[in-house]
Each structure stands twice: as C-alpha cells, then as structure tokens.
C-alpha cells in the first residue's frame, strides 16, 4: 500500500531506470539467494549415528562456510520464534481460559535451563529424521529457538494487553475482521517491543548456538559444521590460536548481524511508535536508508500485493474480531469448572507419573542430593551478582553519565553481552590449570563471562536516562559524594539495575550447565554444582537425573524470581520510576 495516493505511472517515468543503490541492493539479494541454494543439499546430508563425526575439521579455510551454516541456523530459529510468538501471545491475550494456563507455563519455560533438555530433543529429532543430518540440525535449531522465543512472546503479549483502549474500540466499531485486526493493529502495535526483544534474544542465542552444535549425548559426541563445533574441536585439541581465530570470526558475525539486520529493523520499527511515547533520539541505520532509497523493496512488494488481497478475502469467513456481548453465564461457569477439572487431572496425573518414574529409577532421595549441589551453584550465582554489581555499577554510572563515552561504549557492551562466552572458556580454563585454581571457584568466573554484561548494559542505560535538569539541580545544591550516590544515583538507576540483575541471574544459571564441567585439551575440570550434575546426566543419557536436575534448577530460579526479583521489580516500578 506504500505506493498509493499518487500517480504511479508518472512516478515510474520520473524515476531513473537503475541507480547504484538499486544495483547494490539487488546484488546483495542475489548473493543471499545463491548462498541458500548452495547450502540446501548440505542440510540433508546422509547421517548415521554410529559413523557421524564427533568433531569437525579445524582447518581455518572452512570458517566462512561454518559461519554461514551457523548464521543460517540462527535465522532458521528466528522464524519459528516469531510464529510461535504470534500464536501463543494472541491465544494468551484473547482466550480467557487459555491465559490462565499459558502465562504460568511461559513463566516456567523462561526459567527452565534449556541446555538440560538437549539430550531429550536431540534423541527425538534424530528419530524423527532417520538417516539424515536434518534431525541434528533441527535439534540445534530447536535449542536456539528455546533461547529466543519466550522473551519475544512475553513482550508481544504485554503489548497486546496494554493496547490503548480507544484503538481496540475503534477496531471493533469499524468491524475489522480477525485477520485485518491482527495485521493492522496487533502486529504494528507490538512491533517495537517485538524487534527490541528479538534483537536481545538473538544476542543471547549465540551462546546456545555454540553449545548446541557440538554436544555429548548418550555417551556420544555429535558435531554439526558450524562456529560452535569449530571452537569445540579447537578446544578439545587445546589449540588456543584457532580458538582465537574462531573468536575473531564470531565477533565479525555478531557485529555484522547487528549492523545489517537488527539495526535496520530497529530503525524501521520506529514508524510504529505511538506518538505519546516519543523517543528522545531516533535510531538510524545506513543500511535501512540505502534500502529505502532503492526501488527494490517496492519492486519486490508489488507482486505480493495480490497475495495480501487474496489472504484478506479468504480470512473473511472467520468473522470480525469481536467477542459476543452476552455470554450465557451458566454455560460459561460449567465450562470453567470442566476446564479446570480436566486440567487439574492432567497435571496431577503427569506429576504422579513423573514422580513414579523417578522413584522407580533414581529414587526420590536423589532430589535431596540435587538440592544440595544446587545450593553450591546458587552460592556461585549470588557471589557473581554481588561482585558484578560492585564492579560494574560504578563503571556503568560513569559511562552512562558521560554521553561521549556512552555513545562509544554502549554498542561495545551490547556486542560483549551477545558474544557467546563459551568461546572464551578455554582461555580462562588454561589460566585455572596454570594457576592451580579449582573449578569450584573458577566456575564463578566462567559463569560471569557472559552474565555480567547484562548488569553493565542496563546500568549504562539507566544512568544515561537520568534527566539532565535533575543532575544539574543535584550539582547546584552541592549534593555530592556518598549522599549523591545514596539519594540520587542509586535510586535513579534501580529499575534498570533490577532488569539487568534478573537477566544476569538467569544467564548465570544457564551458563552453569556448561561452566561447571569444562574440558580443555586433556584437562577435565569438574565443580560441585547443579550445572555439573545436569551436564553429567546429559552426557550419559541418564534421563531420570536430567529430569531431577532440570526440575530442581527451575525451582531455584522460580523461587528466586518470586521471593526476590519480583518484589524488587514492584518496588522499582512504584517508587523509583523516573
């Protein structure tokens, strides 16, 4: 619809036939298409579990190919994440009964350590595509998907339930169909949070990519060609030079995807901002400007318009986006009771079966053991948070309050936050081995390598959003030193710090699964902890212990969220919101 409202024929005539931007954009598209075509046969390569390679070649000349494979996996996971987000969030926001179930489920899914389930999903997907590497591909993509989807779904759900009331009413009075409402109101209205959270989740998902490309399951190690398995192979040989090369390529990938994909997306999503919440500065993107100046998007979009029209027509029978005004109360209540009863029966049955399974295999006492080692990991997470807070809050405040520094530092920290920390593990491990540091202490550092940046990142954002008149007032009234920190700076950044803290804690728990057992060359280091417990169970295919480990870790995470973070969050929202 972008070209409407004028005289297309004249516009076409006035436009030069081909300009350099058009050539540039077209060439880029062509290259992308070629890459995908070349890749397609490799995805379906023959694969037999017994003969499949455990390690990929560490020849650096393979790196471009591995980079493309890894990147394809990331985007292959992004697409189902977006689809899942749409379906799940709409169901949770629009179906009264579904909301009661879907929201708590999402809450739990967010806290469950995804890596713990890899062994289950890998086995399932290999059986789904027998004799083809596609199963392993799918398992890897699924692991990345689970790292992306929940956050995006939450963000989109909140945008749906916080839709301005008058826009909802306008859509209903206009009698938009369900399809029209979704594309004209729901999706555009949620575009900004969707893109932002997509970018953040994508950054976090690099970690899972690295962890899921090369994995030990059921006493076997599987490897898919990609950056993660390259690094894993280099680590297994203890070749720090090649790990260094992998880190360099990974940096290029992270920065490249940010510059070529997410930055343009963020800049583009600005058009969906409802003006009440005008942003202080508009994100810009050179790539987006180039695309906008070229005519390629329009040329590509024109043939798609009839498709859009047809879809609009076909979805009309689903009726307007309207719920009946009157519901028979009695039937409604009967339905509620039935729904709740069926659900309760299902949950109780499932829990009972799971407990019986554990009782028959590992024994229920194993839970006690898992909780005990969980306490060790919990201790590590606490130490990590305290130290990271003491170090990064002052640094973050300093960066955030100096606009010149923060303009330069913020993108750097963003890259650091999304850089997969598992690439850095061998360097840290080598140091631990040399210095004789036990992994029981060293694991804290490994977990912090990825998690700490969330605190720094959010503190910078908080400090740079303090209104300058407030800062000037504090300076004028000579509020300085300890008083300035206690009464002004810390309260002002508190809401941002809480957000960073939750994310960092979640990241640390997940990282414990790969950080409490590390291998470097012929060194095998193990720490006491829940992460090591899960990793060992995964490696030997001990399903009851995986179940126990993942359950206990979820309990720890959910309990910490409920007892600590959620309260801090409420406090931040009511008292310290600027």
């Amino acid at each position, binding site marked *: 619809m972008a070209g*409407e409202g004028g005289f297309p024929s004249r516009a076409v005539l006035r436009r030069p036939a081909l300009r350099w931007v058009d050539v540039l954009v077209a060439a880029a598209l062509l290259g992308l298409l070629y890459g995908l075509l070349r890749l397609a046969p490799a995805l379906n390569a023959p694969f037999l579990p017994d003969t499949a390679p455990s390690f990929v070649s560490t020849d650096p000349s393979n790196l471009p190919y591995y980079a493309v494979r890894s990147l394809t996996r990331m985007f292959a996971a992004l697409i189902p994440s977006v689809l899942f987000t749409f379906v799940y969030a709409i169901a949770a926001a629009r179906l009264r009964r579904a909301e009661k179930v879907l929201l708590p489920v999402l809450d739990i899914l967010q806290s469950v350590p995804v890596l713990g389930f890899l062994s289950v999903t890998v086995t399932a997907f290999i059986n789904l595509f027998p004799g083809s590497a596609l199963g392993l591909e799918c398992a890897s993509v699924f692991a990345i998907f689970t790292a992306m989807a929940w956050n995006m779904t939450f963000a989109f759900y909140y945008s749906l339930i916080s839709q301005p009331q008058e826009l909802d*009413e306008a859509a209903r*009075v206009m009698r938009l169909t369900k399809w029209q409402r979704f594309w*004209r109101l729901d999706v555009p209205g949620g575009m900004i949070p969707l893109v932002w959270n997509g970018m953040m989740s994508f950054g976090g998902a690099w970690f899972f990519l690295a962890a899921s490309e090369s994995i030990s399951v059921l006493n076997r190690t599987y490897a898919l060609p990609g950056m993660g398995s390259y690094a894993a192979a280099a680590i297994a040989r203890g070749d720090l030079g090649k790990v260094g090369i992998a880190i360099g390529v990974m940096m290029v990938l992270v920065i490249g995807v940010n510059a070529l994909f997410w930055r343009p997306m963020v800049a583009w999503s600005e058009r969906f901002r409802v*003006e009440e919440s005008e942003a202080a500065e508009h994100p810009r993107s050179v790539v987006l400007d180039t695309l906008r100046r070229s005519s390629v998007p329009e040329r590509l979009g024109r043939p798609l318009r009839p498709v859009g029209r047809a879809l609009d027509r076909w979805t*009309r029978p689903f009726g307007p986006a*309207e719920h009946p*005004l009157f519901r028979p109360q009695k039937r409604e209540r009967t339905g509620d009771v039935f729904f709740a009863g069926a659900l309760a029966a299902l949950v109780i049955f499932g829990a009972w079966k799971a407990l019986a399974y554990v009782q028959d295999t590992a024994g229920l006492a194993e839970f006690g053991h898992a909780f005990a080692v969980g306490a060790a990991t919990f201790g590590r997470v606490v130490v990590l948070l305290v130290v990271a807070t003491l170090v990064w809050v002052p640094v973050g405040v300093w960066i955030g309050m100096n606009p010149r520094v923060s303009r330069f530092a913020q993108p750097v920290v963003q890259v650091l936050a999304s850089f997969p920390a598992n690439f850095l593990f061998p360097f840290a491990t080598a140091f631990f081995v040399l210095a004789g540091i036990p992994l029981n202490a060293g694991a804290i550092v490994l977990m912090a390598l990825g998690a700490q940046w969330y605190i720094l990142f959010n503190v910078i954002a908080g400090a740079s959003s303090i209104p300058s008149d407030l800062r000037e007032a504090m300076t004028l009234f000579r509020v300085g030193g300890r008083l300035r920190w206690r009464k002004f700076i810390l309260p002002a950044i508190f809401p941002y710090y809480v957000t960073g803290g939750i994310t960092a804690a979640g990241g640390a728990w997940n990282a414990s699964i790969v950080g409490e057992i590390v291998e470097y060359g012929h060194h095998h280091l193990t720490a006491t902890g829940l992460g090591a417990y899960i990793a060992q169970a995964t490696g030997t295919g001990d399903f009851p212990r995986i179940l126990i480990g993942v359950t206990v870790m979820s309990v720890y995470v959910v309990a910490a969220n409920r007892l600590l973070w959620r309260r801090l969050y409420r406090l931040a929202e009511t008292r310290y919101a600027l």
Partner: protein
Amino acid sequence: MTAGARSPGPVIIEAEHVTKTFITPDGQALPVLDGISFALREGEIVALLGKSGAGKSTLLRCIAGLIAPSAGTVTYRDTPLTGANPGVAMVFQSFALLPWLTVQQNVELSLQARNVPEAERRERALKAIDLIGLDGFEGAYPKELSGGMRQRVGFARGLVVEPDALLMDEPFSALDVLTAENLRSELVGLWEGHDAPVKSILIVTHNIEEAVLLADRVLVLSSNPGSLQAELAVELPRPRDRTDPAFEALVDTVYGILTGREAAVQAAAAPTVPALATPGDLPLPEASVGGLAGLLEILLARGGEDGLAEIADDLNFEIDDLLPLVDATVLLGLATVADARIAITEEGREFTAADILTSKEHFARLAATRAPLVRAIVQGLVATEDGTLREGLFLDLLRRGFSAEQARNQLETAIGWGRYGELFDYNRDDGRLLLEPGARTLLQSSAEPSGSGPEFPGGSGSGGGC
C-alpha cells in the same frame, strides 16, 4: 435559516431501561447507569451531558455495542445488539487513529473492513477527505498533523462509511479552544447543508455551551449513578449565537439543573446537623485546596458573587473543571450556590483574607466538621491509642458505596485536605494515616464527641435519582 431543517424521523437506536452495574471486588453491586431510556431518531443531533462520573461514556459504549448493559436492551433498527453496533461509526476524544497508516489508509480501513472493492474504496475515501477539508494531506501520517487535523481524519473515517448514527465521545475536548470552535462550526455547516452522509449524531460532552450549540435535544445525566435527570429541546436556529439571550438562558438553565440537586442535598445535610451526614451520602468533590482557594479569590475580585456560566466562560473551564471546586466550596460553607450563581460567604471571606497559617486553621476546622470523610478519619484516628490507622480500613468502608477507583480518589482527596489542614499525615510506603498533634484538640473544641469510630452507611451510594 429555518429552524428544524430536518424533522425527526424513524427511530435508529433505542435504549430501554439501560442499567450498568459494576461488581466491586468484595461482591457489592455498584450502579453506574440506572434505567436510562431514550431514542435516537433520524435527522437529529442529541447531546448527552453530565459531570464526570455520570456514566455518559459508559452509556455511549453500550449504544455502540462495545459493552453489554447489565439490564435493559439497546436495539438498532429494532434488532437487539449482540456485538458492535453495525449502523454506527465513532469519533473518539483521543482520535484513535492508527499512527502507522497514512490519512487515506486510516480512512479506507473501515471500508476495507466492509469488503468494499479497492477502486470504490479509494474514491469514497478521497471524497470524505475532501469533504472534511483534508485534501492535500492524504499521504500524511497522523503524527505529522495538528490535533485539529487529526480529529478531521477521525471525522472522515466516521463519515466515509455513511453510518446511520455518528457517535462522538467528547470529540472536541482534546483540542484547544479556537480549533474546537472552528471544527464545531464546520460540523454544524455540514449538518445544515445535508452534506454529511449521516442520519443522526449522538455526542457526549461535558461542555454545556457545546451541547446547547450543537444539539436538537440535550439529555442531562445526574451523577452516581447516572440517570436521566432532564431533557431539554433546543429549538434555536443554527448556526447559533452564543450571545443570544435565549441561548444564554438555556445555558443557565442547564447549570441550574447540574448544580441544583447537589446543592439541595448539601443544604439538607451539611450545615445544620453535621454529625448525621456520612462519607457515603456526601462524597468529597475531587478538588484540590489550591484550586478551591483560587476560585474564592476570583469570586472576591468579582465582587463576591457571579454566575457559574460567566466564570466558566472567562476561565475557559468546562464543567468537569469547575463544578468539583464549586461543590467543595459549598460543602465547606465557603460559598453558596443558588440559581446557577455562586456567592462567597462570610467564612469564605475570612478564609481568603487570612494569612497562610490562620487560613490553614480555618480550613482544618471546616474540613474536620463539614467534610464527612475527613471528619470520619479524624474521629477514627482520635479513637486509637497511637493515632495511626491503616488506609485499608477506610478504603474497605468506602468500597461499600464507591468503586475501587472512586474509593481511592475519595481517600486521596481527603488526604490532600487533611495534609493541608495539618489534621493528619499519610505514609505512602506502609499505607498508614497518622494523626497530627493539633487535630485532637481541634476536634474536641469544635464538636461534641460522637460515638467511637467512624460512621458509614450500610447501603450503596448517594441516594436515588432526582
């Protein structure tokens, strides 16, 4: 200029005994609309007028089929509504345009919903855009337009579907005075010239002059719960002249209707037997002490007495702004209202003339004796040993007569008054009310001790209709 250019025709929308009750968290039914019946006919403009809390927007949404009435029915062309009303379009106070669509796309959207073919859609949208004076802006995004232009898009979007009834929810109140006036007169022009492709208009407003300026009939709603208080026919020819004595007389009449009942209730309850009025009978008007003092000063500057319509006009106040202040001054005995005129009392003169500490003392005495909720809080606090009480106690008691939000607002107003008068303080962190030292002596000296705790009515709300 012929009066009644259109004569009311067949009924389009009929509301019969529409009652809307919200259920409070503790299960109490709280009426917002109470048995309202009226009909919207072809060829007329009807205005729904009332104070805030009169439920006029709720009534409009019942008529639009956006919410279901608790009892009673709304019919469109004799068919009861089961969903959004198929024969109406709506214009919103906040415009409700989709910011990511251009003017033309916004206008076309409601046609697209009705499956109008693309070519016809464009033609009709351009026609509506021209009609409302937006030609040249077809490709603009709403955020590029001023408030007045945005509301024009809102009108175009409503008119383009040629609805039987155009529903308008305070369409001019988000605009500045001049823009609103301009848009109003254009609307009258379209209506009189039979250019607007609508058969009737229902407009919700809290601006009395706007109602009299536009409507053939003005329906006045009373507050808490909203019920039909009066119906006035406006038979002046359009365009109407605000300085016409007949126009001014009508405006004064409406002011009289809107202030009359409250004044009568207060006259009966407040000044003579203060111990009997309860917070449920006599809700606190949501007015700040600053606004109240300002009104008295203006009144004093105007010689101590003036018409409400004149004050509202000069200050550019709408009744939602002015009437709570007026009600508050009357409640505290600082002013009296009769025949839509407000006059300052001796008490009011003293309050205004005094220095800040003395005027605070005045205010404390008046609030603690005449404002039922403030008095109830002070009495409750005095009765405790340590002079503190949880806010929850008062909120629970208030919820018997008010919605949760209203109860909160009542308490907030009382806290504002109590803090200003240094009667009690409030700690937002733990939600406790604390008695100020001066309040104990004040209460003992000015009023005889009456019972122990605060008194509240058992039933709901502030009495029946008029």
